[in-house]
């Protein structure tokens, strides 16, 4: 009897062990390949190397202001993280303070585990200071198994420096096209039809400046600061991409389907295209398309259009927001045009690295922080909580992952905070997008292409003094040239470039080409 009991107990133990092994074996590798249509449910067993024996609160620093319902969202996230013996606590650095507080919090030893970052939000400057925890492939495989499986492979290149990743990018690539929107009530008044290219748009601007502005005071375009909007149109029209862009230092190249040779990458302001652009802007400025005091204008072009002060606007799909605003006025109608549709120019894809989460170098438990990031990105329920809010309260969703807003959506806008920008995967789509907007976005997707140089990261530190000097010089001239507020664009441009070379532009070129050639060779 004793022997039978012992045998029975042994079999029970073996069965239990096998069950545990089987459950452990139901790990990441057993998850479906297509995470966009399947529900991914993470379990603690998928993180065998992460010590979850003690509770831990992961401190997340976000940029921007706290959404009204954030506390509810955080509580919902913490409920879902309970099986992992983990919770999150979030600090928001408001837009007004982020320029001071971002670096200060990292350098000053604030208690940070995860922090939002992006190339436009100090990612590379802080990485150079060693503010971020560097993740090698082994770390990612062990502590972020879902990201290791589902994160688009090409996205890792965008945050990799010296073989290690400084941040985890978002999982979505979206088209970043350019549109112009105009007042069609005014266009009809002067017999102007659909706009198909830059010449049509120029004709509209000149007509409004000549005939409408003297009568009603409505400007053809609310130009201000440096007229980057119009440069973006010109530049897009020629399939130009950026190789490096920080403040006023912009290295660009014309994309022809392959990686450019180093010498084909130039400072954007030194190109014939920019010279022609300056002359065109002078023509528009002299015709009164924008105010002569545009350089000091504090109201931006979008506010100007939305308030009915100007008759056109240029940017990405945000133009639709301002079109709705100005259409609230009686008699006002608008339309948006893709000036490059007929020509078929390429549409740049927003880089994956446009929104990232980094683990702070001072993080006390990077393994746990990595696990939380992994869960927020790829556990379907957690990801939808971060990106969309609480189902039934902030949104409803169908089986095709098409979501609809509710009355409470304004208290937690979809994709409305920096954590959602860094964790979105593009697996959800919004219902009820206006047809005019949908048509544009679908057309962009057709022509979308990723910038082949997104993964090239130029480090200006060997020539930092030169870069700062050249950046400052360009800043002094760019506004005037972009707005055409100079007597002689050629002479002014030559003067600016002469000063740039005197400040060491050639040294910057040499360093840039050196790093670029090394990067190309390493590929």
């Amino acid at each position: 009897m004793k022997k039978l009991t012992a045998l029975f107990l042994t079999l029970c133990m073996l069965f239990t062990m096998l069950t545990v092994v089987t459950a452990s074996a139901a790990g990441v590798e057993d998850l479906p390949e297509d995470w966009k249509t399947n529900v991914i449910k993470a379990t603690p067993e998928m993180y065998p190397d992460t010590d979850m024996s003690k509770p831990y609160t992961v401190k997340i620093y976000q940029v921007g202001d706290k959404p009204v319902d954030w506390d509810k969202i955080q509580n919902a996230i913490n409920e879902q993280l309970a099986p992992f013996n983990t919770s999150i606590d979030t600090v928001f650095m408001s837009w007004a303070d982020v320029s001071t507080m971002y670096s200060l919090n990292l350098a000053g030893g604030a208690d940070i585990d995860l922090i939002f970052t992006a190339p436009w939000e100090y990612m590379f400057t802080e990485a150079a200071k060693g503010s971020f925890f560097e993740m090698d492939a082994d770390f990612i495989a062990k502590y972020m198994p879902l990201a290791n499986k589902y994160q688009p492979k090409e996205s890792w290149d965008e945050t990799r420096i010296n073989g290690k990743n400084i941040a985890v990018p978002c999982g979505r690539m979206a088209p970043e096209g350019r549109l112009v929107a105009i007042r069609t009530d005014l266009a009809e008044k002067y017999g102007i039809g659909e706009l198909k290219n830059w010449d049509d748009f120029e004709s509209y601007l000149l007509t409004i400046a000549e005939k409408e502005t003297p009568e009603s005071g409505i400007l053809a375009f609310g130009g201000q600061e440096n007229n980057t909007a119009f440069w973006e149109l010109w530049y897009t029209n020629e399939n130009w991409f950026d190789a490096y862009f920080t403040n006023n230092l912009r290295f660009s190249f014309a994309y022809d389907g392959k990686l450019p040779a180093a010498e084909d990458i130039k400072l954007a302001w030194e190109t014939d295209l920019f010279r022609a652009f300056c002359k065109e802007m002078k023509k528009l400025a002299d015709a009164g398309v924008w105010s002569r005091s545009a350089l000091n204008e504090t109201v931006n072009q979008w506010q100007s259009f939305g308030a009915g002060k100007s008759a056109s606007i240029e940017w990405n799909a945000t133009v639709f927001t301002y079109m709705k605003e100005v259409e609230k006025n009686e008699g006002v109608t608008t339309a948006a045009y893709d000036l490059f549709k007929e020509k078929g120019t390429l549409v740049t894809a927003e880089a994956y690295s446009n929104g990232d989460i980094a683990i702070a170098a001072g993080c006390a438990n990077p393994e746990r922080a990595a696990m939380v990031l992994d869960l927020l990105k790829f556990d379907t329920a957690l990801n939808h909580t971060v990106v969309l809010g609480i189902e039934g309260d902030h949104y409803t969703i169908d089986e095709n992952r098409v979501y609809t807003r509710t009355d409470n959506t304004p208290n937690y806008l979809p994709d409305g905070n920096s954590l959602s920008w860094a964790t979105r995967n593009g697996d959800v789509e919004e219902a009820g997008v206006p047809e005019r907007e949908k048509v544009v976005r679908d057309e962009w997707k057709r022509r979308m292409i990723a910038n082949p140089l997104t993964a090239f990261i130029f480090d200006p530190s060997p020539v930092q003094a030169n870069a700062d000097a050249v950046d400052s010089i360009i800043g002094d001239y760019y506004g005037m040239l972009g707005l055409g507020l100079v007597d002689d664009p050629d002479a002014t441009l030559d003067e600016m470039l002469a000063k740039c070379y005197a400040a060491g532009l050639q040294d910057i070129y040499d360093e840039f080409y050196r790093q670029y050639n090394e990067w190309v060779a390493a590929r």
Partner: protein
Amino acid sequence: MTASGRAVPKKKIRMTGDRIAVSIFGYIMIGLFALICLAPFYLILIASFTPENDMIRNGYPVLPGAFSTEAYALCLKNPMAILRAYGLTAGVTLVGTLLAVFLATMTGYVLSRRDFPWRNGFAFFFFFTTLFNGGLVPWFMLCVRYLGFKNQIYALVLPLMFSVWNMIIAKSFMAGIPAAIAESAKIEGANDFTIYVRLMLPLSKPLLATLALFSALAYWNDWYNCMLFITDDHLFNLQYYLQSMLGSAEAMRLVAEKSGMDLPAVPLEGMKMAMTVIATGPIVLLYPFLQRYFVKGLTIGAVKG
């Protein structure tokens, strides 16, 4: 008063034509100058009640036109939050001002005493900090890591509690009080602290009022320390709360642009003006009562011949 004690009758100045002309001209010029000084406040007040689109289209109005209270409605959307910020700011200002005046006068008194052996050394150390400091990052690390300032109310009080400038004013003023007063009190058996509290402070009323005004202004207007050390919105002071509201409004606009939502009716320009009125209102109303002390305070620390 003559040497014999009789009052001297006031001599009446005869107003000749040229004196009248000069007086009229003076009054006109000073009146114009006063209007120029008042103009910004007037413009802010008018702009705070002007609709947003009107301001974008037509700029800041000189004469009141269309009337709108939407900026104030947005600023005061959460009245409890703004009342809490007001209360916190008033409390911090009161406590901070009392401590700041106490510290400045006590330090100033000690340094004004010629029998204090190390006064030159101490004065040098105080003065040196006005010329050089460790920088923002070391200071932030000290406050956050070692002094535990994060989300603590004393983070709003301590940094502004001691001002070297106020101490120098106090030192100069108290040096002008005759030393014989302190000496005679010492002979009577008073200790240094008793002399300071019962003799020096009562004789320094103009000084106290001046230092109180300077300190109160500094505490009332402070937003920087709140930005550095406070992330809990229950501890936001008034200036930072209003600034964060403006930041939120800007963010709402940004998010609306990104998400394609209907642009919220956020009167950004009007909000800035309304916030200015809300934040400076009490100080502007209080100022006339403390004006004479401020004028006196401009010269109170001056070296007398």
